[in-house]
């Protein structure tokens, strides 16, 4: 277990330490051969991208994979759901099932897969390009893309909450007294997406605590951790990017720490999107589990 944690930590934190070493090393070269400075900058950017894009790309790949898995899961269960809806209407009253909700969750997944993630990747590419070629900047465009995506995701999460409260009879299980300070802490300390994060976690919690009567707490915890882990890893990576940018700012060129900061911000938006997907995943899997249980017990 400890070894697993160590390897995970070195996998995530290692590249960032390496980058600090690399930047320190380029200071030596700049001092020795000042006429090489321009080249050092370019090579440093290349090295940074090679070392640091990999964690960022891993997050992208992971979330893409999960999105794909969820949409195929939905496609797999859809015919059965349709058949059951036609054959027995009564069962669904127990589950408090809203077909519109499931459709909505899947719509969000498809939207994320086809539009949000590619657009975010485009924003990242534009950032990289504008740092590599400072004469041709796309920073405004990248910022615009990021804020638009964030707005879209928040709108979708807000409508999730509306759907869930419209379902009624489901309350957030944890006591509000314990809950509020934690939420406030997250809201204030996670840049860009803090409030979004707490809102979406609250919505998922409201839904899944209602469902826990049917499927058991441990299964619920498993589903939660499977859904949330990639998002948390992305969040950690994003924080590491911003911390590295903050740490190297005194002695690195402004390009370098700007690039790190940009990648960090992009990853925060990716984390928001991954929460959206995690929500869809939780909804779909809770629904499938509840449904299978009801089918096996009631008949």
């Amino acid at each position, binding site marked *: 277990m400890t070894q697993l944690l160590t390897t995970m930590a070195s996998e995530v934190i290692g590249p960032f330490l*390496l980058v600090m070493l690399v930047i320190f*090393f380029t200071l030596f*070269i700049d001092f020795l051969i000042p006429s*090489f400075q321009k080249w050092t900058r370019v*090579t440093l950017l*290349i090295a940074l991208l090679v070392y640091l894009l990999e964690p960022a790309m891993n997050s992208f*790949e992971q979330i893409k994979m999960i999105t794909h898995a969820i949409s195929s899961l939905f496609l797999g269960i859809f015919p059965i759901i349709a058949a059951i809806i036609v054959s027995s209407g009564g069962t669904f009253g127990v589950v408090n099932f809203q077909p519109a909700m499931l459709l909505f969750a899947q719509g969000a997944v498809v939207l994320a897969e086809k539009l949000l993630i590619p657009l975010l990747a485009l924003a990242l590419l534009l950032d990289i390009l504008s740092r590599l070629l400072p004469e041709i900047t796309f920073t405004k465009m990248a910022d615009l893309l990021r804020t638009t995506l964030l707005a879209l995701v928040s709108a979708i999460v807000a409508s999730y909450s509306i759907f869930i409260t419209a379902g009624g009879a489901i309350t957030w299980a944890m006591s509000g007294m314990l809950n509020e300070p934690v939420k406030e802490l997250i809201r204030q300390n996670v840049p860009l997406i803090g409030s979004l994060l707490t809102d979406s976690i609250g919505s998922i919690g409201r839904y899944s605590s209602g469902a826990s009567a049917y499927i058991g707490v441990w299964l619920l915890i498993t589903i939660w951790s499977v859904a949330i882990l990639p998002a948390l890893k992305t969040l950690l990576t994003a924080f590491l990017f911003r911390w590295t940018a903050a740490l190297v700012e005194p002695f690195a060129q402004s390009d370098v720490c700007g690039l790190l900061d940009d990648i960090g911000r992009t990853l925060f938006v990716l984390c928001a999107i991954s929460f959206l997907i995690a929500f869809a995943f939780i909804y779909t899997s809770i629904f499938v589990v509840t449904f299978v249980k009801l089918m096996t017990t009631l008949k």
Partner: protein
Amino acid sequence: MAVPGALIVVFQLFVVYLLLLLLSFAVPRMHPILYTSLFLFTVISVLFTVFVPFGKMLIHLFQRPSMPFAALLVASAGIYYVSEVLAMQMQDAGYHAFAQLFQTVVKLCILSLWFPMIRQLFETIEPLIPW
């Protein structure tokens, strides 16, 4: 390379400079060819007594199994510096065009050193491109 060794090299460089001054007065007509040959000798000796050990030390200091960057950067900076010095010598002799050509060829060499890394970068970025 220790500090006394470097100091000895500094002293030697100054002696060579004095020798050059002396030569420019003693045999003014032979001066360009003497200057060039002496310069080349000095460059080569300094290269192997100071630059190469220092570069090795620097690489060793920052070496990591997963970090080819340090060695690459040291090698390319060293090559660039030597080429710049040689090109300046050519310019001193009046061959500006030749110096330009020389520097461009060296730049091409440095770029080709970086090709594997640039290819790695392209491979990393590729999945980002959605179409």
